[in-house]
């Protein structure tokens, strides 16, 4: 009986430390993971504070941002899927209109250089404006959003707490959202523990074999511990780009037709379906694509052309399974279930 009580007490203690329970520790801003490169975002121009983070989080979850108050950022960017939209090839926005592209994960945004599948937004602060103004997402104007916030006593108090003034400006509105997104750092997967030599970093032999394969076959694009080189490439998914021309729509440079962002692979097990069109449902389907499904087109990435003229990346069944075993080590359960970020 004594032992049972002790075990229960210990369990209760563990539960208190569970990342799903609210944290009562003093607020800590974003911490730079040791295995990451230097961030692209200049945090000194927008230091993250608890009040700024709380305001950004409230805005992220508030449907008031959309024209008819039916859609929030979080509707298509859900915390437990690394802020992507699980099971949705493309998302449904306002008036049940569908977008053209799969909702990207919102994680490690401080390291982003250009955002969205086409890289149309070069600064984190400006990212929310895209969704706010998109006619198939929130279909609102930034001016109207500011008007609504200015009339809301709760928001006025939160702006005062975050910025020392009740005055709602474009910059403060967007900076608070940046402060929320700045905190969404995922760097505690088993892989991270492995590379940092921490406990919890014991990887299976399959995962280790997969890591070696990954480094030779995948890291040409999914490079660094961010698992992306932030470039735009045509990965041979399609040979007709009339529906979506990708980076070209932003750059107007013919070499960019059919190129899309190289997405990070962090938490990739939680962000299905895959690719810009969201049509590949599993990691197996993704690797099958690279092994045997790559299509020829003028802008196909050179890394997908083999010296013998074949297309794609040679992978046998064992290699695919090992790479997937490795990709599973990129899942950061602590991030996916972090109570600070969930609604």
């Amino acid at each position, binding site marked *: 009986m004594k032992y049972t009580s002790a075990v229960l007490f210990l369990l209760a203690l563990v539960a208190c430390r569970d990342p799903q329970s609210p944290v009562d520790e003093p607020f800590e801003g974003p911490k730079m993971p040791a295995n990451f490169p230097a961030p692209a975002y*200049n945090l000194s*121009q*927008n230091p993250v504070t608890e009040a700024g983070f709380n305001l950004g989080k409230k805005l992220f979850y508030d449907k008031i941002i959309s024209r008819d108050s039916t859609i929030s950022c979080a509707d298509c960017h859900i915390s437990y899927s690394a802020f992507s939209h699980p099971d949705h090839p493309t998302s449904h926005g306002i008036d049940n209109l569908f977008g053209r592209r799969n909702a990207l994960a919102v994680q490690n945004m401080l390291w982003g*250089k*250009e955002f*969205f599948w*086409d*890289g*149309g*937004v*070069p*600064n984190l*602060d*400006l990212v929310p*404006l*895209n969704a*706010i*103004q*998109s006619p198939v997402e929130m279909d609102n*104007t*930034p*001016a109207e*959003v*500011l008007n609504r916030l200015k009339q809301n006593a709760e928001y006025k108090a939160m702006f005062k707490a975050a910025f020392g003034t009740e005055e709602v*400006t*474009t*910059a403060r*509105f*967007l*900076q608070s959202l940046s402060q929320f997104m700045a905190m969404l750092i995922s760097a505690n997967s088993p892989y991270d523990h492995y590379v940092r030599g921490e406990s919890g970093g014991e990887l299976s032999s399959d995962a280790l074999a997969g890591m070696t394969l990954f480094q030779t076959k995948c890291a040409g694009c999914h490079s660094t511990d961010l698992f992306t080189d*932030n*470039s*735009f490439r045509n990965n041979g998914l399609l040979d007709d780009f009339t529906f979506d021309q990708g*980076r070209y*729509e*932003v*750059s*107007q*440079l*013919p070499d960019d037709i059919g190129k899309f962002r190289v997405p990070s692979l962090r938490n990739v097990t939680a962000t299905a379906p895959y690719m810009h069109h969201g049509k590949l449902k599993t990691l197996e389907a993704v690797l099958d694509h690279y092994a045997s499904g790559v299509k020829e087109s003028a802008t196909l990435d050179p890394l997908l052309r083999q010296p013998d003229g074949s297309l794609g990346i040679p992978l046998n069944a064992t290699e695919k399974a090992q790479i997937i075993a490795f990709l599973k080590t990129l899942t950061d359960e602590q991030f996916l279930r972090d109570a600070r970020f969930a609604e």
Partner: protein
Amino acid sequence: MNKFYVWAAALFSAVLIIPACKDGRDEGITGFGSVEIEFDNRAEGESLVFGKTYTNAAGESLSFSLLDYYVSNVVLVSEDGARYVAPKDSCYFLCKHEDPDSRVVRINNVPAGNYSGLEFMIGVDSAKSVSPVTERVGVLDPATGASGHYWSWNAGYIFMKVEGNSPAAGTADNFFQYHIGLFGGFNSPTLNNLKTIALTAPAEPAMVRQGEEAPHFHLYVDALEIFKSPNVLSIEDYPAVHASPYSANIAANYADMFVIDHVHNH
């Protein structure tokens, strides 16, 4: 040091000093003043009037209903070539045809001198186009001053916005619409439609003097040049141009729509 070197040094200094005195501040002109630049939109030799029918270089009749453009990065060039670069952040203007006050821009704290040359950019430079939101105030604030002049999906400012009606358009209400932007990208390149305009005063320079009224560059801005050179723009062929490769042709056209008609000195 022997005497030769002293003399040589003195002579050399004099050679340096003499041309230095010949910048815009010669003859004892000192202090600071202001300059005004008026963007006077015109068509067919008269002030542009919205709704009035004109004919473009393709022979199509048209009328205008909107003509707005960003002016930035102003440089004043004195008679002997010295350049005064106006502080960039005080120098972003959105000239709207329907708001005449917005089309007279003022540059303050200009070193006194005689300025015969004027340079400016049509559009918003790439550094500003990727700057943090705190640096986007006034006409650069996406929610207020830049409302309607900012693309959120391809984050950047619309440098030149031209709209109107023409029977050649073949669209609903015969509407035509040209929204020209694209600053060249920052980390990854894009089409670059930024245009720097360099103009020279036809006769007397703008004489900036401390404590005196600001001289006034009076620019004529021929709206029909948008359709004329170097590329004849047919509304029938291109009733709407936004972010597209063809936008480069229109940017090339508006790059030569500005001339200094005259300078007022008071």
